[in-house]
Each structure stands twice: as C-alpha cells, then as structure tokens.
C-alpha cells in the first residue's frame, strides 16, 4: 500500500457521533481526531512528500465502516446479460459496500472449488469490493447430494457461507447433514426458507390481496415451518444456521424464541421487506415480484421491530438483477427478484434511522460488523466489518444523510433496471467508499481501479464533497 493516495476526511461523524478528522494512509486508518491527524501528517511529511494527499470536506457526513452484504446475486458466470461481477461489484461500491457474498445460483452452480475460485478471482480483478463466494449446499442446487463443502472451504476462496438460495434445502436429512458437516470449518448454512409443497405455483403473499387478484398464494407458514424445523435441527446438532431474507411476523417470533433458547441462529431482512407491502402487486407490475414475496403492513412493522431490537441480526440486500425480458411480461411469466445494492443504505436510513428506531451505530452493526462476523471475514489478510479505529483497515463509507435523490434505475451501476424504487425520492447518499484506503467511490462517482492511485489531483479536495 506504500505510495497510495492518503485521504484526510475532515469533520466527518463516525457512526453519527461527534465530528472529527480521519486520516487514511497505507490502507489503514492511520489517525482519528483533529490533533492526531495534524500530528500524523506533520510526521509523515518529513518522510514521504511524494505520496499524494487528498482532503475531503466531510462536514455533515456520517462515517461508517465499509458495508458488508451477505446476500448478493452477481449472476456471473452464466447470466452476464443481467449482471457481471464487474458491474455488480461496482454497484456495491456505489452503495457503500466494501464486501459482498456472491450467491451460488449461477450457471454453472458454485458447487465446486473450481467455480468458487473463479468467482473469487474475478472479484479480485475487478477490485471494487471483496467478493466472497457462497458455496452451494447441494450439487446443482438440486437438494439431493451434498456439494463438496470441504473443498470449497479449503479453496483459495475460503468459503464459509453455504446456501442453495433460490431453492430451499427441503430434505430434513440433507439439511441436518449440511449443518453437521460445516462445523469442521466453522461454516454456516444460509437457508432460503420455503416449504416447497406449500408454495407450488406460488406468485405472491397469500392473503387478502392474493384472494382478490387471483394469484396463487405463498403463505407465511411455508417460511415459518422451515425456520421452526431448522432452528431445532441447528440446536440438535450444535451448529450455525443463518436464515436468509426473513419476511413474516411469525418468523420474527420464531427467531426470538430460538435465540432465547440459546440456539446459534442469525437472521436477515432485506431492504424491500422493510419498505414495501403486497398492496403494490395490485397493478400486476412484475417489478414487485420477489421471493419471498412482499408481505403485509403488519409483517413490515414486525421485521422493523425485530431489526431494531436485535432479533434480526443483519440487513442483506438479496440484490437480484434481471434482464428486461424477464420482467417485461405478464406476472406469472416474470422472474423473481429486485436490485438493491445501490438503494439499501437509503432504505435502511428511511425506515430505521429517520424513524428513530436505530442509530447509525446500529446501522454499522446490521450492515457491516454482524454480516462480516456471520461470514467469518473479520480476520485473515483482508478483514472486513472492523470498527472505525486506528490501525484497522481503511474500509470506510461516507454517507450524506441530508441528501435526497430520486432513483433512476437506468443510471445505476448495476446492469439491470429492476429496482422497485424507481421514481422514488430517497434520503441519504453515499458520497465516498474506501476499500483498504483506495477510493472506489468519490464525490458519488465510481473511481476505476487504474485511475485510483496517484490520481488524487483529479479530485480536488474542494469538490470532493460537493453533490
């Protein structure tokens, strides 16, 4: 990292606290505090004047540890028309992320050491964020035979999170074996909880709106029944379970109960389940088709409450880009999924911070430290989810909570336009993202890898803040 641009972040508010200065140098947080930064700079000037120094006026900006997403679909290999690792990770950086976990439901499926290493390398080459591949639980996501979990764990990608996401591990015996097997390398099974038989042909949440629209229902019990079974299995074999995209009030209750019993379970909610309800389906616009489906207002309230009180551990985007063909059709023929990397932080601010339910420190927990801990990436040579403290890797996100912006999906970095927030004005804007001291985003714009180092002059300090 020697020779890379140093950044002085003036007057930023770490976790929304008292404004202060941060110095990012040599890939680390070199100093915190106005005097400490002044001293560090004075000292540094004596030994290295050649290293560029960029000052950022951070008045009004909140500094967060770089965000970590445990649930991203990058679509490569296989569906590069919808997203590539390059475009998806650039979108992640634009959304304030410094690390994403790439789900296994690609073509081919990430069920071998070869595929996860390929994804890991492509992520490294792109350089926008750290890409941690998720390994499939079963071969081909078919739910029948265990994939080579050990080989994926031992590979260069060091996989710790395993999931058949998109599909539920329905077979209780396979689920039990998977939970047991990953104990050997401290892995976790991330379950897409969906009882298959109860959701045959399901199109949307089963309730008042589905009855009216004549769309086959996806009942809450189909999620809750699997969660109930899985927490008991995790307890029985003493392993780690992560519940992906929990979406119902009943699921929150089950997780609360499981945690009170000491079961090693973590839970995730998506930004769209924090913000949107099944009423939106009334127009039959497939942009709102997602799995698990949008639920009722009572469920939205329950997941917000669960996230605020710590029952739900993290926010995971479930960023699921789709090509236009897959959404430009009648409801039943459309694909499930929504983009989310570039709107996640704004939605969390809108639903949780601006409503007074959470602090920015809470946001740092649910979007950085907790997901990194679940993914076991807080250590090693590229740690993520670390606190904003001197000596820690300079993974930092600057957000302007007072900014307002309107979502125009075509202008986002993601290659797909299936955002459910099109046209909405959202609060909070990511101004800058630093990955180990390199600015991946400055002034709200993505900074390509090659121009990053030594190009500090291209972003004058005076304009770095302006929006």
């Amino acid at each position, binding site marked *: 990292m020697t020779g890379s641009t140093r950044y002085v972040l003036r007057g930023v508010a770490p976790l929304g606290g008292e404004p202060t200065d941060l110095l990012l140098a040599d890939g680390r947080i070199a100093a915190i505090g106005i005097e400490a930064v002044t001293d560090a700079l004075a000292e540094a000037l004596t030994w290295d004047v050649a290293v560029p120094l960029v000052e950022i006026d951070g008045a009004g900006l909140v500094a967060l540890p770089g965000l970590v997403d445990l649930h991203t679909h990058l679509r490569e290999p296989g569906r590069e028309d919808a997203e590539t690792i390059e475009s998806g990770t650039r979108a992640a950086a634009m959304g304030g992320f410094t690390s994403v976990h790439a789900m296994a439901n690609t073509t081919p499926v990430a069920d071998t050491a070869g595929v996860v290493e390929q994804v890991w390398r492509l992520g490294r080459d792109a350089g926008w964020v750290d890409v941690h591949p998720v390994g499939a639980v079963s071969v081909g996501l078919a739910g029948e035979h265990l994939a080579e979990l050990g080989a994926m764990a031992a590979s260069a990608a060091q996989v710790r999170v395993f999931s058949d996401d998109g599909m539920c591990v329905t077979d209780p015996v396979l689920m039990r074996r998977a939970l047991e097997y990953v104990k050997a390398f401290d892995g976790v099974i991330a379950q897409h909880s969906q009882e298959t038989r109860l959701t045959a042909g399901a199109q949307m949440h089963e309730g008042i709106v589905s009855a*009216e629209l004549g769309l086959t229902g996806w009942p809450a019990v189909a999620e809750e029944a699997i969660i109930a079974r899985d927490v008991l299995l995790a307890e029985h074999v003493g392993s780690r379970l992560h519940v992906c995209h929990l979406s119902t009030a009943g699921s929150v209750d089950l997780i609360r109960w499981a945690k009170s019993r000491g079961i090693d379970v973590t839970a995730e909610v998506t930004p769209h389940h924090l913000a949107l309800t099944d009423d939106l389906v009334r127009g039959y616009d497939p942009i709102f088709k997602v799995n698990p489906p949008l639920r009722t207002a009572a469920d939205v309230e329950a997941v917000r409450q669960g996230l605020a009180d710590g029952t739900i551990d993290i926010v995971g985007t479930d960023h699921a880009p789709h090509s236009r063909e897959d959404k430009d059709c009648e409801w039943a*023929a459309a694909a499930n999924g929504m983009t989310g990397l570039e709107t996640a932080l704004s939605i969390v601010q809108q639903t949780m911070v601006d409503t007074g339910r959470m602090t920015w420190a809470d946001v740092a927990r649910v979007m950085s430290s907790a997901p990194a801990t679940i993914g076991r990436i807080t250590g090693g040579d590229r740690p993520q989810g670390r606190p904003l403290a001197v000596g820690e890797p300079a993974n930092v996100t600057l957000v302007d909570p007072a900014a307002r912006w309107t979502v125009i999906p075509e202008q986002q970095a993601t290659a797909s336009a299936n955002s459910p927030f099109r046209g909405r004005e959202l609060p909070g804007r990511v101004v800058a993202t630093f990955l180990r001291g390199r600015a991946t985003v400055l002034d709200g714009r993505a900074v390509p890898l090659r121009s990053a180092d030594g190009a500090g002059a291209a972003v004058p300090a005076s304009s770095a803040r302006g929006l």
Partner: protein
Amino acid sequence: MRHLLSTADLDSAAAVHILDTAAQMAATQSREIKKLPTLRGRTVVNLFFEDSTRTRISFETAAKRLSADVINFSAKGSSVSKGESLKDTALTLQAMGADAVVVRHQSSGAPHTLAHSGWVDGAVINAGDGTHQHPTQALLDAFTIRRHVAMAGAAGAGAIGQLDPTGRDLAGLKIAIVGDVLHSRVARSNVLLLRTLGADVTLVAPPTLVPVGVEAWPCRVSYHLDEVLRDQQPDAIMMLRVQRERMSAGGAGGGAFFPNPLEYTRGFGLDARRLALLPEHAIVMHPGPMNRGLEISADAADSPRAVIVEQVANGVAVRMAVLYLLLAGDSAGSASTAGSASTAGSAGPRTADERTAIA
C-alpha cells in the same frame, strides 16, 4: 370506460348502463335482420391464449352483429413458460390496427398488463384471466338475474321477463354461488358486480375451495349448502364448474381439494331434492360447461328453472353492449350519469342513424 378488465372498475350506474344497453341489443336480436352497422370499419381481435370455444364464439358473434371486422388469434401454448409472446403478439395486433382486443389468458393479470403496457392502443376486454376475473360473464349473469328475478316482486311469477327492467339494479336479491370459488374467476367477478348492484351474495363451498383472504370480500361464506337453501331462500343459485384436476393429488397446488366426487356431490351438488328447497321463483344458473352428475344433476340442469341456455344468448347481447360502449359510445365515459333515469336515448347511439338501428 376505456377498457373492461374487472368488475371492480364498475360502479352501480356504469353497470346498470351496460345492462340497459344490453337490453336494447337483445331487443334487436329478436328481429329478422340482426346485424347493426354500428362498428362498421372497426377491427376486433379475439386473442385467446387459452382454449374457450364458447367465449370466443360469443364475442365473435357480438362483434359481427355490430358489423365489426373480427380477427381470431389463437396463441395457445406459446406463452406458458415465457411471457415475451404476450408482448410480441400485442405488438403484432397493434400493427394490424386493432380497435379492441378481447383477451383470454391463463395468467391472472395478463389483460391488465396488456392494457397498461403501452403495447396496444385499443380497448382491452378481459375475456377471462387465470383465476382473477371474467367481467362479461358476471355482466351476463347479472343481466339474466335482472330479467328473471328483479321484477318478480312487481309482477306475478308468470309475467317475469315481460316487464321492462331498464334502470333497475339488483337491490335486495339473495344470490348463492356454489362450488370451486378458489379457482373461479366467475365467482370473483360476480361477487363484486352483484354486490355493487345491491344484491346479497353468499358463497358456498368446502373450506379447501375458499381462498385465504376471502374475509375482505363483500359477501358471506358458508360451508353448508342445505342450510343456505333453507335459511336464506336465495333468488338465484349459481353452480360453478368443478374441474376434474382438483380431485387428484397431482393437481395444481399439490393435493386433492376434496376426497372424491361422490362426497363433493353429496355436500355441494344441486339435485332434485335441493331444487325443491328453493323458492318458487328462484332460477338455476351455470357458466358452463357443466359436469352433469358432479356439481349439477340432470334434474336440475334440465328443469324449467334452469336458465343456462338463456345465459348463453344473453352473453351475446352483453358483449355487444360492451363492445358498443367501448368502441362507439365515446360518451360512455359518462355512463355513470345514466342511473335509474336511463333511457334508450341516453344509452348511447351517437347518430340518428345508429339510434334508429338500435331502437
């Protein structure tokens, strides 16, 4: 009214106006020369992604009696897995200059998507979408009920159908809808329309064939047909078709909805005994095609109270009215002004010529 997608879009005045217009259309159909010049030069496309010879023929007859050009476009089987063909087909129709698209689709909401996609400019008429809506079926059912029963209080039983029901709604009538409500677009359309017209609707079905969320519907639900017949004395009873695939474990949704056909018939079939429980003036309806011996016995289907064949004839008149109001009746947007004061004149023909032709 720009499209007809759901009976939820119709207020009472608009619905009555359609029924009144249909009555005028029906009157012309008893003449020797049935054809009206109203839609000459206009093109109506029947776009059927799902087989339904009866509905297609009904719309085709209605359009032809109004002198429209009719194109039948069967796209069955081409869009089951991928939706692109709905869009591509729509763009093709648009290029042909369709003034109205009558669409039948196996996916709920497909007509809604078609109408709001910008793919076609013409009026979209929902001829049945998935398990969602079938508004012209509900309108023809309401038309049939109004003709037979709504006047029953005003006249002796023998004179029913002779009096002019123009401008009337269905206030105070009791209607029972019996059978597979869960999968029925006919039931959904009828519950909303009949309630809008002032009728009290009771759904009767085994609990497995009632949707979760039905509590928000403007109707009552019962699991006991005999009780409903005895206690409510409905003015009309509508038997829904039970599809054979609902009885097998391999059916949609993954499981049989009732144990066997005999048990279904015992609980929910309309037979001679139940027919006798109905009041004198009550009528028996079925949207067809019937499963004789399952949801309705031959005794009931062929009884003098059955108006099932007449429903078919009324279907043509109602569809003529809908096509007319959407394509020719530009003033039909103000249909809500019709109300009970509706007359033949306000019902719509714009020119003196057309008025003569219709009246």
